């Protein structure tokens, strides 16, 4: 199994001295070439799980394994795309994409050639010499995705990469992600709170509970491939969205009630 998350738990100490359990015994598997989304309400520990899988945070219990090898610390096999704007503003698009190759010690000519391939893949050819502040938010996120893909990771791990974009751009970028996924056959785990995005892109969607985060249910998305955003108009698509919302509604309501209690 390319990615196996087994029994991961994490508890944080709150500022008032109490402890908050963010994750409780989370287990999940992603098969070779599969696109899996992890969906949950705000505060369910999605980003904590993202950091634990990516090796930026240590879980209290449980393991993360790639191809059967349990991993510790930062993972060469897992490429992360972050929710926040994460391009280096002092580097051009090409230099941003070449960054992991530079760390790997590749020569300038080789890393530029490889970086150009991934710039083309995300549809940014012609923008290689632009700086991030000369690009739109969607183009900056595509640069970040190209940079992670240039790392050629076994697993692509994305944490709400389009969260800051408007709905239409997000749907269109979903098409781009599907095209890249088809081309690279990249095993992908997407963390999101957006149901439409999860259904549009995924083979399976894992629903998380509100705090502590657990896997509540895994839904197989049996929609035809290759897909495009046009599938959003189909009745089947609507059925999956409705099904997932039924699961999420209860969790999101718990989250909202908790937030209101805390701020009261």
């Amino acid at each position: 199994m390319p990615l196996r998350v087994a029994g991961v738990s994490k508890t944080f100490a709150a500022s008032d001295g109490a402890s908050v359990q963010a994750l409780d015994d989370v287990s999940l598997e992603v098969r070779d070439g599969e696109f899996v989304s992890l969906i949950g309400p705000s505060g369910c520990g999605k980003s904590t799980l993202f950091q634990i899988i990516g090796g930026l945070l240590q879980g209290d219990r449980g393991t993360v394994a790639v191809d059967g090898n349990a991993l510790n610390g930062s993972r060469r096999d897992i490429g992360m795309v972050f929710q926040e704007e994460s391009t280096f503003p002092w580097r051009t698009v090409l230099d941003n994409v070449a960054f992991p190759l530079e760390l790997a010690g590749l020569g300038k000519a080789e890393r530029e050639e490889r970086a150009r391939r991934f710039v083309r893949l995300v549809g940014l050819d012609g923008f290689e010499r632009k700086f991030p502040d000369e690009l739109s938010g969607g183009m900056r996120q595509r640069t970040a995705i190209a940079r992670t893909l240039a790392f050629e990771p076994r697993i692509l791990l994305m944490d709400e990469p389009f969260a800051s974009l408007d709905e239409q751009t997000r749907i269109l970028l979903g098409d781009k992600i599907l095209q890249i996924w088809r081309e690279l056959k990249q095993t992908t785990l997407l963390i999101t709170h957006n149901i439409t995005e999860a259904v549009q892109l995924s083979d399976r969607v894992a629903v998380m509970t509100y705090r502590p985060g657990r896997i509540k249910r895994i839904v197989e998305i049996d929609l035809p491939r290759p897909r495009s955003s046009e599938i959003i108009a189909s009745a089947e698509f609507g059925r999956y969205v409705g099904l997932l919302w039924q699961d999420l509604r209860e969790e999101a309501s718990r989250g909202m009630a908790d937030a209101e209690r805390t701020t009261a």
Partner: protein
Amino acid sequence: MRRGAGPVLAGLAAVAGLAVALEMAVAAGLIGGFVVAPPTAIAGAMPKLLFEEGVGRAFLVTFASTFSASALAALVGIPAGYLLYRHAWLGRAYENWIAALFSAPLILLYPMFLVIFGRSPAVCVAMGFLVGVIPVILKTREGFLGARPVLVNVARSFGAGEAEILRKVLLPAARPAIFTGLRLCLIYAMINVVGIEFLANLGGLGFLVGEMFDRYDIPAMYAALICLVLTSTLFYALTGRAERWLGGR
């Protein structure tokens, strides 16, 4: 991004406009010629400064002292600022004290430095360093603190070690703030270097300004002041070039 000649021409036009206005104001008697020399008289005094008063050598002395003081301040201040960032408790313990020193009139310590170093350019370098290192420390720390954590996480996710994170993420992210600190350092260092040259007759442009004033050669004094402004402009341009050379935009 292409830098046009427009801004340079606009700057020169403003200086020329001010010079014409000053010339007319002095000629009309609105400003006393004993206090402010007209620009034509200042320009006329330039050859004298160049060929009789050794302004070239004075420039070199002031330039060397200011440059040495600032280079030392950068060598000490940037690592110190990084330490204050890296060890948060150090930052909390010392930031206020360092900021308080910044507002203290440190130039008044010059007699002590004269006693320590004797009447030599080392006094100017030491004083310039003392006032210049403070903004470098404070702005460097500010720059590192302003680096967004997600950029560090990106590098870490690609397996970068601490040294690579410092070199490829933190330093470039902090570069604009560090250069702001270096520009402030140059300004304060030069003010102090010139001040000490003036007060302790230690040569350089500061001494030349004082010498011309003592002789009551007002046009030559203003000409020496203009040389000071040009030196400062040169430093500013050099800093900008250094920043671009290091990858700034």
